[in-house]
């Protein structure tokens, strides 16, 4: 009967660590791009800017209806062809797997974050807007200093939950031959034949990180529940 042998981990740690760093970097970049772009998308919908609001609604509906892995394939294979046609010479312009991953994840998460923030904007008490009007605050100051801080505070548990899902989704970059934490473990497992040990370690790593983040979600929920209760 085969027994588990974790001694292989001693020499595998550097490669697993580099994979983990890639996963974390991709998560952080997708979070940053997603939040900035998502906030803009949410505000355009909130202000009902003609034409743009409809386009964004369509974009969000499409992105949220298809799997991320399909979006990755679309971006990796189709965008170079489109760029080639747009450039005039017809030859596909390669984007590269890394840029594809970072851009696609950012655009994908922007759709989800925009929905979270859009609903958060609708949930802000109308009295807050009236108070800002009564104080003669500009629209920019109203949203910058009053509305968006409240939205982000109240929505932070949901945003963090979505970010945990994002972190787990980074494992899909294997389809682009990129090496994240799971990809590193897969390659090591194929190299040394220790599949169970490798995948167990990766599972523990994902569990530890996701659990820690979930504890933060619970703490944030409790904090803002106390803050809003009177």
């Amino acid at each position, binding site marked *: 009967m085969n027994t588990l042998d974790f001694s292989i981990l001693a020499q595998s740690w550097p490669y697993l660590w580099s994979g983990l760093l890639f996963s974390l970097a991709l998560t952080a970049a997708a979070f940053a791009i997603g939040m900035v772009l998502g906030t803009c998308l949410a505000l355009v919908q909130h202000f009902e800017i003609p034409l743009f609001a409809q386009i964004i609604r369509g974009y969000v509906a499409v992105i949220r209806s298809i799997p991320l892995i399909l979006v990755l394939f679309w971006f990796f294979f189709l965008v170079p062809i489109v760029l080639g046609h747009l450039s005039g010479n017809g030859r596909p312009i390669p984007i590269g797997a890394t840029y594809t991953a970072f851009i696609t994840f950012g655009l994908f998460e922007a759709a989800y974050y925009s929905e979270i923030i859009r609903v958060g904007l609708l949930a802000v008490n109308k009295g807050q807007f009236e108070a800002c009007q009564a104080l003669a605050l500009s629209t920019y100051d109203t949203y910058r200093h009053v509305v968006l801080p409240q939205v982000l505070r109240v929505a932070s548990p949901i945003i963090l939950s979505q970010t945990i899902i994002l972190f787990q989704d980074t494992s899909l970059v294997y389809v682009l031959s990129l090496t994240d934490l799971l990809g590193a473990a897969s390659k090591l497992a194929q190299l040394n034949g220790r599949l169970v040990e490798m995948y167990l370690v990766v599972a523990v790593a994902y569990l530890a990180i996701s659990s820690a983040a979930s504890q933060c979600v619970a703490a944030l929920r409790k904090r803002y529940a106390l*803050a809003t*209760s009177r």
Partner: protein
Amino acid sequence: MPRENLSHATQRGAIVVVENVVKRFGAFTALNDVNLEVGKGEKIVLCGPSGSGKSTLIRCINHIEKHDEDRIIVDGVELSNRIADINSVRCEVGMVFQSFNLFPHLTVAENCMLAPMKVRGLSQAEARDRALGLLRKVRIQDQADKYPHNCRVVSSNASRSRGRCACSPRSCCSTNRHPLSTLRWSRKC
């Protein structure tokens, strides 16, 4: 606005002039040919049954609701569609809402500092000095760095201070819905 075009009431020194104002919400007429003059230094109370238009009138004076007919003049400025006119009135009119509408993510002092800093261009230090001065007047200066939900005093004092803080020192009026609510106290842990 040229002095000769102002209503006679304004020329007599009235701070708030409401002339034949009508406000409709769809088919429902909330204000029907309302006239009001408030002199400088005068304190008035509007009494009436629920739904009689008291709040609507106050909200029209601050242009939170836009009146449909005739005119409202506050300190010589007629409320129109011009944003500059509306903001110049709002800078001089303090408003206390029934539900206070304090900003929950800001401390009491920060609530009072935001408008002077962003609208009047005061520095943070100046705005804080002014805010603490007003909070001292309503005896809640010890609550300055607490958040509204943590205050042991009901939020009306903080809301009133915020409304006054946003105005210039020579601000002409403040509107307060349900002033008897200031008599309530609530204890927070």
